[in-house]
């Protein structure tokens, strides 16, 4: 569920602030940047535009519906999936990567939009979130694409495995039962 902190700078900056302070949304964006970067420049360009766009489209849908469905579990699963794909460094066709990116954006966007609606927030926050996603993906993919040495790719894959591990723990927190 989205928790918009009021920065005092308006809803767009509230959205930027939300993404940067929400590991549940931030980690899948980082993981997708790493995954796209491992796929090279051309695929990274696709992800750079598809992810923010699908995030905003999903957000509009979520805002219109106002329905959130298991946000903790779904964000954890997305974290695990993209982190694991990065760790495995599986080569995917550009179309599969694009569909995966769009699904990720639609899911998180939907949950953000629904959260904004239920907390009676301003829809403009979505624009801030989308902008922050764009900036993060552009920086993240640019760094990974520039890495040439084999060990540097390994470091990226290790980072993916950490994100997958964190995703599994997030799932645990979402399903938590006290001892």
């Amino acid at each position: 569920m989205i928790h918009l902190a009021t920065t005092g700078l308006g809803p767009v900056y509230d959205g930027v602030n939300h993404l940067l302070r929400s590991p549940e949304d931030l980690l899948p964006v980082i993981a997708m940047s790493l995954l796209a970067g491992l796929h090279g420049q051309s695929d990274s360009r696709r992800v750079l535009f598809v992810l923010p766009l699908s995030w905003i489209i999903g957000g509009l849908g979520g805002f219109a519906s106002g329905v959130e469905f298991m946000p903790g579990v779904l964000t954890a699963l997305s974290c695990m999936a993209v982190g694991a794909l990065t760790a495995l460094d599986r080569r995917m066709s550009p179309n599969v990567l694009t569909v995966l990116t769009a699904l990720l954006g639609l899911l998180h966007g939907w949950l953000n939009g629904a959260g904004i609606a239920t907390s009676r927030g301003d829809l403009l926050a979505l624009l801030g979130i989308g902008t922050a996603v764009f900036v993060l993906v552009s920086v993240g993919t640019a760094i990974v694409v520039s890495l040439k040495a084999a060990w540097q790719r390994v470091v990226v894959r290790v980072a993916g495995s950490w994100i997958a591990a964190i995703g599994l723990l997030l799932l645990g927190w979402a399903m938590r039962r006290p001892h």
Partner: protein
Amino acid sequence: MIALLHTGKGAAAGLLAGLEHPLSGWDHILAMVAVGVWGAQLGPPAIWLLPVTFPMMMAVGGFLALIGVTLPGVEVGIAVSALALGMVVAMEVRPRLTIAAVIVGVFAIFHGYAHGAELPAGQSGVTYSIGFVISTGLLHATGIAIGLIHRWRAGARALRVAGAVIALAGVWFLWGALR
């Protein structure tokens, strides 16, 4: 703008607690450094595969703790992990990669379970999880860095001695766990 105010209370404390938790006991520290050292002794691909396996399986242990599954003998498992990992470093055991990964993975479950079951009250579980995965990864990296001296004969000998010291510490931990 009306929004749920999310001040991040507990988030920073959770992150710090998570970073600190793997450093809070010598049993954790020595076992995780030993994983990195063993990976360095074995060389590629074990040098990065073992430190990837550990956080992933540690997350499985944390997940089990969070969903309320009871795992008996956690402290004994952690102590045995220091003993066994110290021994494989001391003896420079070179099993097949899958067997090495299984050994590391099984022990990681006990460490993860202990981390997952011990979240301090009032702190964010999400940032706590991020903290302890990062901290664990950095301990492995430390082990790998230490293990790089393996390329020199004296360094290889020093690592074996260090492994023996870790194994002895494991005996001490086991004694404490069984008392």
